[in-house]
């Protein structure tokens, strides 16, 4: 279980806390869809779980030895002068991954995401949708237990959205934690979905 206990977070030079005494538990085998107004703290919450941010007070417990996959909302989180494949290989190696696993993933989802159209292109020359697919490939080709997805559907075409839906559902089935920040309604009414709204520095179950 990912457990938030009385978490408060405030950014430097900002007068107010973005979260105040937030307590919440995230369970595996469910998709938590974080919703909320712009600036309500969806990305901050994801970054707190991923340890890209530290809490000001309170604590966040993440199960031991959990590996995290993260699809960031930042489009430029790759090396621009390297090709798509070189980038994915590099990040896979930093995660102790193997080229074989990466290539297997690419082959399996090539039809849906059309990887062969852009993996040999330099990252700077890719379209926004292709950059998003790169982030998805990096996150899902990694053997992880926690999936953090920040606006993963942005810029994707229909077939890629469906493939991403399938990837998320498979992750849930295999027992992963899935936390998704989006205001889209892709996962509205499934029994494995928990819609939660971030409002007034707290989480509200919807």
């Amino acid at each position, binding site marked *: 279980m990912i457990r938030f206990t009385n978490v408060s977070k405030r950014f430097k030079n900002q007068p107010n806390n973005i979260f105040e005494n937030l307590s919440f538990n995230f369970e595996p085998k469910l998709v938590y869809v974080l919703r909320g107004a712009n600036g309500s703290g969806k990305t901050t919450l994801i970054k707190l779980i991923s340890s*890209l941010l530290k809490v000001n007070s309170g604590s966040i417990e993440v199960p031991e030895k959990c590996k995290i996959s993260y699809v960031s909302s*930042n489009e*430029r989180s790759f090396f621009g002068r390297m090709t798509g494949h070189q980038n994915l290989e*590099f990040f896979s190696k930093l*995660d102790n991954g193997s080229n074989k696993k990466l290539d297997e993933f690419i082959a399996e989802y090539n039809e849906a995401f059309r990887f062969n159209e852009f993996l040999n292109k330099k990252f700077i020359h890719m379209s926004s949708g292709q950059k998003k697919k790169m982030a998805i490939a*990096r996150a899902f080709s990694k053997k992880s237990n926690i999936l953090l997805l920040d606006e993963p559907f942005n810029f994707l075409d229909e077939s890629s959205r469906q493939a991403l839906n399938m990837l998320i559902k498979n992750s849930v089935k295999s027992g992963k934690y899935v936390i998704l920040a989006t205001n889209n309604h892709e996962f509205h009414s499934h029994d494995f979905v928990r819609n939660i709204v971030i409002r007034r520095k707290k989480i509200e179950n919807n």
Partner: protein
Amino acid sequence: MKTIRRTLELWAVVLRKQFQIEFSYKTAFFLQNLSIPLTIVSWFFLSKLIDNNSPFMPDGLDYFTFVVAGVAALDLCVSVINYVAGRIREEQISGVLEEIKITQTSFIMYFSTLSAYPTVLSLIRLSIYMVIIFFMNQFQFNFEILMVVIPILALTILSLAGFSMVSASFILLIKKGDYVTKGYIMMSSLIGGIAYPIAVLPDFVQFFSNFLPVTQLADTLRNVFAENLSYELIIYDIYQQIILALIYMVLGVIILKYALNKTLAEGSLTDF
């Protein structure tokens, strides 16, 4: 054993990544060593103006060899620090640093591997300088020289990797400006004993010179070309480089940890 294997593997992965990036700028990649002959030619003519019999000059060394060995040492020390600082800044701006933080590779490990590429490149440049001095002065090469230079170079590289972490930490904290790298380059050029021996400097300045990796490296390279290799001096240089490597590595890790904690608490890891 597993850690050593993983470290070497990471060095290779980061080295490959940097090569892929640098090689994508083909013109710059192939022209990057063009400055070496031009630098050497300028110093060759300038050295004609300098008295080789100055009491400050080491025994058996002419000014041209003295200064080119110094420039070669400075080139290595400056290139490594400058390159690492530049990469950290780029990765901070692009947001790649956040993605690296998510991986199983620790930041300390990743930052230390960033010096792999400039080290290889600088060693090639250093070899070019050395070969040119050998040819111009018709020195006899022997393997004894290599046995002297290799440990000093290895220790210098460790010091530079440590200092790179200090420099990277300041980039994480203060973002633009990179005053630590600039200050280091300025001090190395000014009091590192590059164009003049540190013996001409006031005593208290000489004390600070000894904390610069470039001072010992330049000393060693010059010693190689001196008429008689002074083993006493070489052992002294090795001791000093061991101490410097320890100081810079420990300092680098401590300051980098502090910078990471602070930027993660503030949420400013990829602010720029």
